């Protein structure tokens, strides 16, 4: 089978810089050159996105053709002779980069992306020292949108490559960003040029991950966090999300897929945080609360035949997804789990339970979180996230911001020893770690729910429920038949629990449309706003692409396997908090601190 398929793909022979190469039909000149390790510079091109051919940086010379085709957008054809670095190409490319620079606010030392900016590195590569053309920046009226709590959009640094537009539309199905106006006035804008916080933007930050310049960046809170650390009257608690520990290394020069949990903890301690704790703890707590919530809803639906129960139930840990559903499918808000995200559960507990146990006054405690996410910044600033009586999470930093702090402190990250999280809200399980990847919440929930209902471990080898392990760019459906239940869960006997896992909001939209059209009959739906789940989050190190995300995913499952405890309900600190503080799942205190409500929003 495989062989015949291979034969059916036509081969194309072409010559690039004097080297003959044979590629599959449909391969672009750019990809063909990459086969030969010939590097053609690109700018608007991004592996995750459809080809735009906008910037024209990747032009090449094709013999017998007058114009210089863009190699990213031109398929190889038989007998093509390509030159990637001819005199014509070099001059034209230099012109293009100079043109881009002439309308780019290049005050690099003031830019957040200084050092990791793609136009900057291209400019230094091309040696564009002498400004060939007039500076167009002073003549333009640029807008800087900094009203948002999560993302800043600075048009003066925009080079109009439209990566963000493609990301927002293709990957996320949100289309908060689009192209407005023509010609010299053309810009990337929002609906009627409203600031980001007034439009359908979910703060997912996928655009930030792909912006080649400093036009789209996270709003950083680095200085505020340093101030809190230096303030001797403050006790600064930091929590770190599961997906940070497998990606932070990238921000500090290490290859993708390295697990740096211990070094990260060591670094945080050296930065001066008073306590280094783990969001994993509340991830486990989420599973207990959310699992029980699911079982309660199933009980109402199946046993009590309550027609008003909202099924399927949707996960609620991804704040990008929450804002998306609030805008796009507000009629389904009742189906969302009322559980706060692990970050917010953690924040609420820091200023209550943690303070109580550590004999601290909550007003002197600053709660910081390190997240792979930009939407978490928005989430922490929601008015409903103050159930402790204070702002539950004071500052949210992305993985990237932590990387910057570590550099600022002059730490040699790779040389740091491996250290452990502090105790009390620092214990974690494998189930919590996999929250960082698509399908992880589902898997963790099933590990617990199945055991609660049957009294037995889930019947999969090594507790690995591979059927729900989501893949990027795919909606994954799975079902699990519950057998031999405990007596109190008898109504679930023989029930086929139908689950679906989706990542990337464009896929979430599809699932939601199916649910809306009554085409799908699920019980439990896990949705993560970002491609691949949190590991591909908008706060993760730049660059990102499928290869990098695959490596991060492998690292997460590796970390899960390496944990001595793999199920949320086995987390000793979780057991302790129920005993000492919360009472029981879905109890009064849980409702007060760990659950929330949602706000319907308009499309525009």
């Amino acid at each position, binding site marked *: 089978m495989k062989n015949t398929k291979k034969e059916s793909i036509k081969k194309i022979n072409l010559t690039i810089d004097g080297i003959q190469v044979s590629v599959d039909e449909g391969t672009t000149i750019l990809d063909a050159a990459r086969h030969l390790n010939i590097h053609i510079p690109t700018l608007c091109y991004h592996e995750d996105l459809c080809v735009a051919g*906008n910037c024209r940086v990747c032009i090449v010379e094709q013999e017998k053709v007058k114009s210089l085709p*863009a190699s990213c957008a031109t398929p190889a054809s038989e007998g093509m002779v390509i030159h990637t670095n001819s005199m014509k190409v070099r*001059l*034209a490319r230099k012109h293009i980069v100079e*043109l881009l620079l002439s309308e780019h606010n290049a005050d690099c030392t003031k830019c957040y992306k200084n050092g990791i900016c793609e136009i900057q590195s291209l400019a230094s590569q091309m040696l564009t020292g002498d400004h060939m*053309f007039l500076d167009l920046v002073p003549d333009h009226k640029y807008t800087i949108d900094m009203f948002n709590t999560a993302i800043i959009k600075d048009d003066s640094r925009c080079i109009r490559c439209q990566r963000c537009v493609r990301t927002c539309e293709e990957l996320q199905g949100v289309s908060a960003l689009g192209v407005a106006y*023509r*010609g010299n006035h053309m810009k990337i804008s929002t609906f009627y040029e409203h600031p980001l916080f007034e439009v359908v933007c979910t703060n997912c930050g996928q655009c930030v991950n792909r912006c080649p310049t400093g036009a789209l960046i996270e709003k950083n809170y680095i200085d505020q966090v340093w101030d809190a650390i230096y303030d001797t009257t403050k006790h600064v608690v930091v929590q770190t999300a599961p997906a940070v520990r497998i990606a932070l290394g990238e921000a500090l020069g290490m290859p993708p897929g390295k697990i740096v949990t211990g070094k990260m903890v060591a670094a945080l301690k050296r930065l001066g945080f008073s306590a280094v704790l783990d969001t994993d703890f509340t991830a486990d707590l989420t599973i207990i609360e959310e699992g029980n919530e699911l079982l309660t809803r199933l009980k109402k639906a199946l046993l009590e035949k309550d027609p008003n129960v909202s099924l399927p139930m949707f996960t609620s840990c991804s704040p990008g997804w929450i804002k998306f559903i609030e805008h796009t499918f507000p009629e389904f808000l009742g189906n969302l789990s009322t559980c706060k995200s692990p970050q917010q559960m953690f924040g609420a507990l820091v200023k209550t339970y943690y303070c109580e146990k550590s004999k601290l006054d909550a007003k002197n405690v600053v709660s910081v979180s390190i997240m792979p996410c930009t939407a978490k910044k928005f989430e922490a600033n929601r008015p409903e996230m103050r159930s402790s009586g204070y702002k539950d999470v004071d500052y949210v930093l992305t993985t990237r911001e932590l990387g910057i702090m570590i550099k600022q402190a002059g730490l040699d990250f790779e040389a740091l020893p491996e250290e452990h999280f502090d105790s009390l809200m620092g214990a974690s399980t494998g189930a919590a770690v996999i929250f960082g990847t698509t399908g992880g919440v589902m898997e963790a929930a099933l590990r617990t729910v199945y055991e609660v209902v049957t009294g037995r471990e889930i019947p999969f080898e090594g507790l690995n429920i591979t059927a729900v392990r989501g893949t990027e760019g795919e909606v994954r459906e799975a079902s699990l038949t519950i057998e031999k239940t405990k007596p109190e869960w008898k109504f679930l006997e023989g029930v086929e629990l139908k689950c679906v896992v989706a990542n990337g909001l464009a896929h979430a939209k599809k699932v939601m449309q199916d649910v809306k059209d009554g085409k799908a009959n699920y019980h439990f739906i896990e949705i993560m706003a970002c491609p691949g789940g949190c590991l591909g989050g908008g706060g993760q190190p730049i660059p990102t692409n499928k290869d990098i995300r695959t490596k991060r995913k492998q690292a997460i499952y590796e970390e899960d396997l390496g944990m001595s405890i793999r199920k949320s309900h086995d987390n000793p600190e979780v057991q302790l908090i129920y005993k000492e503080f919360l009472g029981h799942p879905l109890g009064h205190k849980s409702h007060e601190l760990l659950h929330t409500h949602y706000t319907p929003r308009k499309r525009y």
Partner: protein
Amino acid sequence: MSDTKLKRVDLIFGEYSNVKYKVLADTIKLPNDKILEDLLESGLRGRGGAGFPTAMKWKYTAQAPGDEKYVVCNADEGEPGTFKDREILTRVPRKVFSGMAICGKVIGAKKGFIYLRGEYKFLLPELLRELEGYHENAKSIGLDFSIEIRLGSGAYICGEESALFESMEGNRGEPRNKPPYPTTFGYLGKPTVINNVETFVNIMMIMRLGPIQFKMLGTTDSRGSKVFSVSGDTPIAGIYELELGMPLDRFVDEFGDGDTKAVQVGGASGFCVPRKKFKDTVIGFEGVPTGGSMMLFNSSRSMYNVLHNYLEFFEEESCGQCTPCRVGCQQLRKGIEAVKKGDKKSQYLEQLMKLSESMKLTAKCGLGQSVANSFSSIVYNFKEEMIY
């Protein structure tokens, strides 16, 4: 001499038959191969300005796989100085519909669209009335080809074929990457023939007269006649159907005001020919091609102002998508301003000439690629006017 005057032709606007849609009725009885053969023989090239051989365009689309194909008539006449399509659609719309219908038959399309320039909205009521008559006639001769009119919204770029498709599909009018070309991937991603209004009328001419008689007009490279929109410093501005391949000096003799210093051939995206080159310039695909626009300038005109005006036009009308066009147009306009003001030395013009060449080589679509035409021809020929 018998040919002191340029040969006037009346094929585009003339009536072919007293019976409405007679040529169409006759033509659809012919086999497709015969129609294509006649077209090929005629040597007809697109009248929008680029001059792609029409027969080849139709043949490729006919051969492209797919059951769903479309015919699109480009009536987005936006090139400054061109107003011939308006006249054609006003006076002989039936010929346009018939040409489209024949194309539909040849390529196997059942649906045609006229993409009408937004500013030509006033033509719409009359065109819709005429279309009713067309649809009745098509029905009576058993032709399954309907035509719909879509209005543009005033963007110059939407005259570019792939941007036009995007606009028809309800998207932002931005050119697509090519390949794939419309012949395989046009409107809605289906094989599409897109031709200029005048091209469709030429089809009718060929079907009526036969390719041999059509070929008797024009030159080897530029067969047939062409409708010209003559404007500028001329006492007789208007629309004229003339033979292709005429020398420019004779055109100026006839249309100029006696003091013509330059002719802009082909609109803002075309070439500027100075007086000293009139004699050696042929209007046609072998010389300077045009979609019909002929703008005459006499010595009272500042060529700096002319160029500045064109550049402002391009700067506004670029879709803004690709770098060379979006930023290049701004740099060229500001560049000549800087030289004029003395902020930049005159040598800066050389730099700008190179830039315009790069734009020609690297822009994504015809718009950005053709800015260099007027820029380099005006700067090269009227350099002193740029500086002083």
